């Protein structure tokens, strides 16, 4: 009688053990180890002979402006804000246009607009890099050469590299946002608009009092997810401007490319680990702040 009971108690742990073990091994333990490294001066010269330096790496990241972390943080914030504002407004306009009742080829347009989402991200970025922005055979410079402008290096100064990265990121991220926006706009009850029009409300009133409040709760989670992914974006800027051995000359760093460069290019492991931990703390604070609530609808 007592045996199945014990079984019942232990069973959940046995069944979830493989998964939790894997997560501990690949995620939790490396994070703890990263924290450990962050307290040392480990770099390529003292791979084994490193010593503890306390919080020195952290103070260097946070208080030494020249170290570059603060700059990278600023760039990341600007990057996130610019991308989110553009993404939300463009997606909103596109979705509103797609919602026009008499638009007959809506489905065709939608399918084509989803295309960038379906392409493997790194392939798209590399195609943009070589096909569009390349100095010699990129499409942009071929077009420009017709106007007598030769060899503009899109990815080698900070401003145009940043703009290029934003464009590529928009290209990659807009399909998802348009889909979310489209779903949200379609869920609004059309009779609200009709009665508002009867009351003499203009377009702006309708936007402000009907559309915005109705879509806010629907697009909310998707927007938060996108803020996170934009903030953590690595591939676009890394592949476009700073591949190992193929730096284009621009020097824009988001916090992720900055952490990567310090770990794998300049081999400053202690410092890079401190940055990783700072980013992680920041992300935790951010997710607690946005109250991304844990949805638990379990039947127990």
């Amino acid at each position: 009688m007592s045996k199945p009971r014990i079984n019942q108690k232990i069973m959940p742990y046995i069944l979830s053990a493989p998964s939790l073990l894997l997560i501990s091994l690949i995620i939790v333990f490396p994070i703890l180890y990263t924290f450990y490294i962050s307290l040392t001066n480990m770099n390529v010269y003292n791979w084994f002979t490193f010593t503890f330096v306390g919080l020195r790496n952290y103070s260097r990241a946070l208080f030494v402006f020249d170290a570059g972390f603060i700059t990278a943080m600023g760039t990341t914030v600007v990057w996130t804000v610019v991308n989110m504002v553009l993404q939300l407004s463009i997606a909103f306009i596109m979705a509103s246009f797609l919602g026009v009742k008499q638009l007959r080829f809506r489905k065709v347009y939608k399918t084509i607009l989803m295309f960038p989402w379906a392409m493997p991200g790194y392939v798209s970025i590399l195609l943009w890099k070589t096909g569009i922005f390349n100095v010699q055979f990129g499409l942009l410079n071929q077009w420009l050469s017709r106007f007598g402008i030769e060899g503009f290096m899109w990815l080698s100064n900070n401003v145009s590299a940043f703009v290029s990265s934003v464009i590529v990121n928009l290209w990659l991220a807009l399909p998802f946002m348009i889909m979310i926006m489209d779903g949200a706009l379609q869920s609004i009850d059309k009779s609200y608009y009709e009665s508002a029009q009867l009351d003499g409300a203009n377009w702006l009133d309708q936007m402000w009092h009907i559309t915005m409040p109705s879509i806010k709760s629907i697009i909310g989670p998707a927007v938060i997810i996108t803020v996170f992914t934009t903030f953590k974006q690595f591939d676009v800027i890394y592949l476009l401007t700073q591949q190992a051995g193929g730096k284009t000359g621009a020097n824009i760093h988001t916090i992720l490319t900055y952490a990567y460069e310090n770990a794998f290019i300049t081999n400053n492991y202690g410092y890079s680990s401190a940055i990783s931990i700072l980013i992680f703390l920041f992300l935790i604070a951010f997710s607690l702040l946005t109250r991304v609530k844990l949805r638990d609808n379990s039947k127990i």
Partner: protein
Amino acid sequence: MKNRRLKKKIGLLALNLFFVVVCFVTLIPVLYAFSVSLNEQNSLVGSTFSFIPKTLTLEHYKRVFTDEPIVLWFTNSVILAVASVTVSLSVAVPSAYVFSRKEFAGRKTILKILMLLYSFPSILSMFAIYKLMSPFGLVDSRIGLVIIYSGTMAVFGLWNLKGYFDTIPYDIEEAAMIDGANGFQIVKLIVLPLAKPSVIVTAMMVLIYVWNEYIFAITFLTGAKKYTLAAGLYGLQATEMSGSWPVFAAASLMISLPVLIIFFLVQKHMQSGLSAGGVKG
């Protein structure tokens, strides 16, 4: 009255025109790569460029097979993807079921911790993983990468499946239990068939992640022999880009094709299989 209808028609025409232009602009990078990959002449530089190649050729596609070990990379990608999907699902299904159905000490705490871990980009601990794995000979090994990929996707798998299991009514299972079915039978015969959309989407997400992952692959694998398609294409682009841009374009499109097919096949499951999971952040 007539005037208004005319205005509406013009507006609609303009809207259609707008979408045609937007769709074309969206496809430019891919169309251009496609055109370059089929164009025989290497007259890439010059003002006579057009989207329609003048002389068609499959030469560049052939060269992808003859000059680059793409079949080998493809095999490596398939091995890694299948192994990672298998490992991910076989660890995620039982634990997701348990977290959805059973009450046990520590359950809530573990779920909360998992939620926080979900926001951690694995690239930040890549160096630590490297250093931890190298004494065990797991660097430059496929097993090492499978462990990394399954581990990275484990939180997602657990959450996504658990979220879907939560939406399946418990009554059916209770009825089966009364009929004498054991836990294993219940999961196999009742829960899994009902959770099919979510299992498919979870498997596809792992598959696509592994297929597209390049940064761990190029960091952990030293020889091009073990390279996956993603790592191989990255290398192709980084080393001999200027000479073989048409070959690179051809390879890019071929590598993307399976992912494109999978994406548009799974798209209809996407909404139900993913949104129910409640994975956020």
